[in-house]
């Protein structure tokens, strides 16, 4: 059984973001990181492997050459190798274009389970997992907060607003996970050193058989017209309570009445 984890390189939320000339995010302005939600997917994949239910866990990343730093970070969790699709043509891809590239790369591989984050912290569309499954014509079990790999099938507890659904599907399947699924480990020193030597296969778009018109800004089905900074929120009134709660409670109740919220 082989698990593939799509991983994305994203700007650090804590860092300043810049918009580049071509209306994409300037990822060079800040130190990018491995998308946090993908770490839970990697951790879960490693647990499946450690339980003896998977032979191999491989990372898959669509991203520029610099994304290799992120890929090595993913590998430091103990993964067996990685595949990168790196091509200038990928720049400006929207969710379906990204899913097409990932699907094309997956078609070249043997795999049983795709295990990924439910959202990327920059695009945050939550669309890629289901779109990827659609392109691959497999089920998608999304927002998993528990995963169980059985004989040829996978079962998850899928988070809903008030609880969960337990959903089961045959493999191959795509599963996306939420934070509640596990507590990721810290990569060990040994893992970090080993990551440098793990096999990394780099392919371009031709290598995965995707035409240039299918990806990037050209293949995107949506267009960004402009991006503008939002005027920063300003601090409003500040009230210090008298220690009994009365002053603070009065201030908030008055405010809610003024705002017609009460």
């Amino acid at each position: 059984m082989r698990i593939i984890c799509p991983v994305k390189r994203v700007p650090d939320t804590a860092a300043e973001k810049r918009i580049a000339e071509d209306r994409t995010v300037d990822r060079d302005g800040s130190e990018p990181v491995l998308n946090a939600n993908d770490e839970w997917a990697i951790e879960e994949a490693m647990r499946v492997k450690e339980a003896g239910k998977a032979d191999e866990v491989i990372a898959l990343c669509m991203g520029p050459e610099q994304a290799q730093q992120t890929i090595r970070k993913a590998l430091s969790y103990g993964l067996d190798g990685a595949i990168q699709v790196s091509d200038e043509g990928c720049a400006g891809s929207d969710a379906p274009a990204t899913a097409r590239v990932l699907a094309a790369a997956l078609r070249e591989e043997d795999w049983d389970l795709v295990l990924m984050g439910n959202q990327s912290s920059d695009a945050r569309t939550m669309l890629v997992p289901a779109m990827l499954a659609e392109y691959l014509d497999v089920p998608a079990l999304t927002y998993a907060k528990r995963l169980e790999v059985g004989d040829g099938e996978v079962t998850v507890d899928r988070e809903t607003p008030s609880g969960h659904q337990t959903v089961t599907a045959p493999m191959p399947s795509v599963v996306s996970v939420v934070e509640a699924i596990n507590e990721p480990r810290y990569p060990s020193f040994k893992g970090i050193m080993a990551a440098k030597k793990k096999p990394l296969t780099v392919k371009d778009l031709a290598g995965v058989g995707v035409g240039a018109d299918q990806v990037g800004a050209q293949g995107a089905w949506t267009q960004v017209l402009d991006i503008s900074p939002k005027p920063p929120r300003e601090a409003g009134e500040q009230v210090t309570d008298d220690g009994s709660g009365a002053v603070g409670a009065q201030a908030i109740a008055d405010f809610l009445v003024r705002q017609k919220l009460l």
Partner: protein
Amino acid sequence: MNILVLADHDRGTPKKIAHQLLTAARGLADGEVHALLMGADAGAHAEQLGAYGAATAHVWDDSDAEDYATEPQTAALVAAVQASGAQVVLYPGDPLLSDVVARAAVRLEAGVVTDVTDVERDGDALVATKPIFGGDMLSRCQVEPGRPQMLGVKANAFAEEEVGGSPADVVPLEVTVDDAARRARVVEVVEEQSSGRPEMTEAPIVVAGGRGLGEAEGFALVEQLADALGGAVGASRAATDAGWYPHQHQIGQTGKTISPQLYLGVGISGAIQHRAGMQTSQTIVAVNKDPEAPIFSIADLGVVGDLKQVVPALVEEVEKRKG
């Protein structure tokens, strides 16, 4: 231009967001506004959507919608787009429905814009405004001309407004669900908490609690305040990580994004990853004992004080003023 609204409902009772989306659709469509309702009892009150401008309500009340995840509903959405002749679909940014839209978009080769807070019409194109980078910036986007347009609209972006139209024409939707669509089977549905509170991503008021509550029991205070205000309950990651409140209530970068009319945070410092999920709220009120807490820099009203005193006093004050 016809517009189809994916009308979310609770056992047949349309949710607020369905009314909001229909109101938005009415302002944009020069053709007809249609609604799609899927799942158990979907048709129970479908005709009422006429009051919000829906000419036709397509109803698909089939156990396939409940027994299997996503794919049967995808087939229904595709069928409804075809039946309504809609060039535009407005849907709520609910995670489970987003999956349905994602798959349908691939089938229809439709462009999708998520997190939309405003829409303007420019000829046949809809120009959507959405906050990006946790609300630091605004982006205006559109679907490539000629493609079906699917816009995920944030809750509370549009105020619901009745037009007093005639009842919607309720028509059963013909959907062919093939066996492949039944691959992901729902074996159990577990309601972990049936609180009767509104859903966090939809509620006009959200009261959120953080590490400052000190213990799981501290959320009782948050719940009391939420109930007094008729709001939903949210939490910071520190609180969900500690197991004080279920993860689906987590607000922030790795949790959910909310933009209610009022966010009221207690015992939350306002770390950037938390703000990434709530700073597009219309008004922000915070209670924190630390006058330097970063949440105060974005709060319309900040109260420096002990939440254990302020929250119970506020619950009392709210009850008193409600009369």
